[in-house]
């Protein structure tokens, strides 16, 4: 019971962190249709900026300024690069951000060096919020959770039935026409992209000290966030929220269970077979595989099943209309 509770708690807080990471991406992806490969890099940049500014003026300033700077950068990127690429369609934008990720990584290393940096949790947020049995739940995790929920709210404002939201949705398919109706589409796109990057930055400033702030951190976040947004369904916030929770919980519990296919099949298999006769073909490997070891692939398995069974994700709205 204790074990279960703590797992649940860990799972939830991890899920919120995941959501935080993927929130900005969802925003950009769903509204601008840009698969922003540089998202993780903005997240990293946020962490580094957060570190530097909290070094200068204290954590809270860092938390405030890092997102702002990343947001501005994002706007610049949109304004001077992506805007021109938009006509060439998704692939072009995607590749651009891919390149951008490389460049940002190098720049970060130029500024902050190639080693991990000591980005620590502020004393104000040190300590435990409450303890479940013997294991503490730190204040900071609570803080992260609150922020993540705040993000969710904020994005509902944007994505939700606001007029701006409408304009963007329409502009996804027929930007020309939306402009012809007198809406300044480009500017709105710029804002959205900025906002997305800002969120990434915020996630970095918050997650950077919970995890490790190092040049590798962007690659580390890697494709999991893409899994999240696709699983959630393109354009669906609640979807990506649920997806991150699902993945987090799933992994957390998988990690902590030592079940293996062998255990499952033992009753049916004759002892010797089960042992090692099948060893030569990785079959035994498959059988002895523990759920805890499968944890990393689980998200992708789910992703595949989802895409095949329900291609528009958990909450995604089907947009093909004849």
């Amino acid at each position, binding site marked *: 019971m204790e074990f279960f509770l703590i797992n649940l708690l860990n799972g939830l807080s991890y899920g919120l962190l995941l959501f935080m990471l993927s929130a900005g991406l969802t925003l950009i992806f769903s509204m601008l249709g840009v698969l922003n490969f540089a998202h993780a890099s903005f997240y990293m940049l946020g962490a580094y900026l957060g570190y530097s500014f909290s070094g200068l003026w204290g954590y809270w300033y860092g938390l405030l300024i890092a997102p702002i700077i990343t947001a501005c950068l994002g706007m610049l990127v949109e304004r001077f*690069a992506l805007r*021109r*690429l938009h006509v*060439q369609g*998704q*692939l*072009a934008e995607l*590749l*651009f951000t*891919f*390149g*951008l*990720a*490389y*460049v*940002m*990584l*190098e*720049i970060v290393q*130029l500024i902050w060096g*190639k080693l991990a940096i000591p980005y620590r949790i502020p004393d104000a947020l040190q300590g435990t919020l409450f303890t479940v049995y013997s294991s503490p739940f730190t204040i900071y995790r609570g803080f992260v959770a609150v922020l993540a929920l705040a993000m969710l709210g904020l994005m509902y404002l944007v994505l939700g039935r606001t007029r701006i939201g409408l304009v963007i949705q329409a502009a996804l398919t027929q930007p020309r026409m939306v402009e012809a109706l007198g809406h300044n589409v480009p500017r709105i796109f710029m804002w959205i992209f900025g906002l997305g990057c800002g969120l990434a930055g915020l996630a970095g400033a918050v997650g950077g000290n919970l995890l490790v702030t190092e040049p590798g951190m962007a690659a580390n976040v890697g*494709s999991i966030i*893409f*899994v999240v947004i*696709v699983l959630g369904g*393109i354009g669906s916030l609640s979807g990506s929220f649920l997806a991150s929770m699902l993945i987090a919980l799933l992994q957390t519990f998988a990690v902590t269970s030592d079940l293996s296919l062998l255990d499952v099949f033992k009753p049916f298999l004759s002892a010797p077979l089960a042992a090692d006769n099948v*060893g*030569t*073909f*990785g079959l*035994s*490997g*498959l059988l002895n*595989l523990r759920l805890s*070891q*499968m944890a*990393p*692939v689980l998200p*992708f*398995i789910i*992703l*595949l099943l989802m*895409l*095949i069974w329900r*291609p528009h994700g958990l909450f995604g709205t089907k947009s093909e209309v*004849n």
Partner: protein
Amino acid sequence: MRYQFPISATVISAITISALLLLAPLAFSSNAALNFITQICITSVFALSFNLLLGQTGLLSFGHAVYSGLGAFAAVHAMNRISEGTWSLPISLVPLVAGLAGLFFGALFGWLSSKKSGLTFSMISLGIGELVFAGAAMFPTIFGGEGGVSANRVSGTAWLGISFGPQIEVTYLIIIWTLLVAGTIYFLTLTPLGKLASAVRENAERLAFLGFDPRWMRFLMLCFSCFFAGVAGGLSALHFEIATTDNLSMLRSGSILLFTYIGGTALFLGPVLGAVLAIVMSVFLSEITPAWQLYLGTLFMLTVSFAPQGISGLLVTYSNAIRLAIHQNRLRILMGLSFAYFAAAALLCSGAVILIELLYRWRFPIESFREIVLLGAHFSAQNNSSWASAFILFGLGIFLLCSLRKSQR
């Protein structure tokens, strides 16, 4: 828009290219050169196979390395069987085995992914890619853990004195395979299937209303592409005599995508250009500069923004321009202009590069670098004059470009 050679031109270029390829190893016979040529061939095959999906069928795959990787593993296992003597198969046919493996897995996974097109397809391919990559780590008996599986291509009796031990022999084997594959793929684009593939790229629904099953179309093209990808994997296995899980990695998939795009799909050989670039980058660039990743990223960004059709696109447009100029006998003007642009670009680039290099040397003094020499002038991060001159070069380049563009309007 696609640019088709008239057939005769195709034949000519085909012959010249093959001739060049076949002569190259004789011209440059140092191991490094051979290694270089071989890698270019391998990557070219991979890129062409990828373009069969991207350019021809309009399917953007994020997990194409899966098939080349699995092909490579099939190849090394085959090679081991051969050297054990359990299989009797000439080494030169190993790539075929790899190709079949690629085909098999292509068919297997393709059955899932070909259901969908567009972004969904891409995402499925991403999922499969990650899955296979992560999964490979779980079966060390097959994939040899992170150490990979190595094999020995020199086995059995040498046939006509060809043991494939020396690099040159392997290089030739690989070149021949490359030419074969390239030819086949080009032929494929001329067949009804190829035409239908581009039709399904354009408008799958309409194709369905012409009596074709779009899914089946995608599936077929996937199979072909995966077969050739597998061959590429087999070739790499022959060359490196090892297959590791990073043959399957997302990094591979990503880079082949990028370089195919950079090469451009406007010409059939566009992807090959991309492949050449890729190898040059990974072999030379990382050796001469620590900033190679910065350059790589910048290259992508610039290409996408200024040459959306990739290098080959540039070539095509430029050649068209020349044709037009000749037509209106304004060739001299065009040449003058392009030279001016080239000069400006050269200035700008050299300036930028030197600045970047200086920056790196200044930032990471402890790392070991070659010193920068341009036209006999030495630059160092310590003395300001080099910084200044670099800036001047850079500024000059920009100024020239701007003034040129003004004069254009």
